[in-house]
């Protein structure tokens, strides 16, 4: 079950070999930190890479999808937002992190819902919190914040205490309701 994690020296060797045979050089870049192998992919090739990982390398579980805003992050050279896809191979227990950068204005990425239906709500949350749009998502609405909310609260330029939305809710009296 866990041969890839215990016996092999590099648990990702097989995956990287398959990926480079499909894409060659120059499509993605790699980085390693602790036990995370990260694949930086341009948004135009994102779906191709995810599809290859799912169908050819056996990463059948999309364990996690989330976003981050790097506005003002120390030493930042890439785009402002990044969406990460944590994939797991349930047979070998191998884990890989795919990262796609996306920049202002109008951050847009292709949706992963056709590949994994489980991406549905997670992409909606990224849209809700960061304003990253996912093209091809079947139902891209806000999920946690109210629908009339206009800002994206997890962006770094949004203050912790909000912009007074709570104090400016329209007030209904009993007669009006």
């Amino acid at each position, binding site marked *: *079950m*866990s041969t890839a*994690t215990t016996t092999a020296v590099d648990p990702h060797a097989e995956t990287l070999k398959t990926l480079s045979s499909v894409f060659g050089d120059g499509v993605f870049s790699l980085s390693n*930190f*602790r*036990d*995370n192998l990260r694949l930086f992919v341009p948004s135009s090739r994102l779906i191709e890479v995810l599809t290859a990982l799912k169908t050819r390398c056996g990463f*059948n*579980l*999309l*364990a*996690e999808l*989330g*976003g*981050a*805003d*790097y506005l003002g*992050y*120390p*030493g930042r050279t890439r785009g402002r937002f990044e969406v*990460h896809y*944590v994939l*797991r191979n*349930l047979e070998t*227990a191998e*884990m890989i*992190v795919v990262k796609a950068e996306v920049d202002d204005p109008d951050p847009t990425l292709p949706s992963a819902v056709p590949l*994994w*239906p*489980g*991406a*549905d*709500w*997670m992409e909606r*949350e990224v849209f809700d*919190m960061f304003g990253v749009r996912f093209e091809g998502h079947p139902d891209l609405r*806000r*999920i*946690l*914040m*109210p629908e009339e909310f206009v800002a994206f*609260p*997890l962006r770094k330029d949004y203050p*912790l205490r909000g912009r007074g939305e709570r104090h400016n809710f329209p007030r209904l009296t009993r007669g009006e309701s």
Partner: protein
Amino acid sequence: MTASAVDEPELETEAKQAAWTLNFGPQHPATHTTLRLILDLDGERIVKATPDIGYLHSGFEKLGEHLNYNQYVTVADRKNYISPPMNEVAWHHAVEKVLGVELTPRCQYIRVIIGELARISDHLLCTGAMALDLGAFTAFLYAFNLREQVYDVYEEMSGYRFHPGYTRVGGVLYDFNDRVLGRIKTFLGNFEAVYADMSKLLFRNRIFLDRLRGVGVLSKADAIAHSCTGPVARASGVTFDLRKDAPYLAYPELDFEVPYSSEGDCWARFMVRMEEMRQSHRILEQAVAKLPSGPVNLPIADKLSLPDKLTTYNSMEGLIQHFELVMPNRGFETPVNEVYAAIESPNGELGYYLVADGTEFGWRVRTRPPSFIHFSVFPHLIKNYMLADVVAILGSLNIIAAELDR
């Protein structure tokens, strides 16, 4: 109601079928917490369910960017408040992975113990409340009574009953003493009897079985496609368990099995949870017996954990370290890097995507909440079942709204 009776071919469109709409929640005893479902019904058959969540959204992830790694443990506690220590273990697991530190053996065992206690207490509530929602009140009382003894352990180890806030970066708040171990042993001793009571009350209960068998069937392929993990996935035949497949803490040294079922219905999810409690009990007995002696926190030289009072007042090193950690403009240093780290929580994979920016505050604290992902499967599970099955399926998924909305 069996599945076959409602599997008749559908000719009309969804909109035409739905004769009326029902709002389920946000305040309803069977939701247990605050979540809302908009149910389109044809008689009592559910044509479409639309979850509406966010009622409990409290900006926990934003708060993670403004609280330091030790302070945030109190917020992590409040996500899945049915099993707080598991959240703490998950949170500091991610922090320690970013920092790249290895815990002391004693601390690893202590974290396994509090985590497995939390797992039992979570499953007791989930299975008990599931029975309660379906009318089997007695089993719930037995389960809830035993949970009190888990709270006794929390109280003895940390001073807090509900949200212990017990783990710290590189260690825990206080070391286990004999009284804590005594309480754990009391709990372990009482567990078997309660488990036997619950199994006698529920396992062959005709009404309970009829309400759960064949209801809310989730196939293995769907479970994987919808990112399900934990008991929900294992009830559908996925045998993946992070404790076995990506081992962390002291789990490789402990002997336990991963229960799974291939049925995928509510009954399978219930039974997987019941069996997991027994396995957790096994883990606990081994962990308590094997609990290594020695220091629980990392040494002062690692500059992560707060030294105890004796060291602080009697040694220069201790005093300096205490000062460094307590002063607001200092604290510990982290790499400018990011990591995804996950553990097996009672509900499934509980992970943190932590972006560190060199300070002791996270840059981005993304939680991978199992409840959120499992609730997104709910509309698919409930489709074409009856209104009364809503509570059975909700109960079997164990949706915790605080974790769902964060």
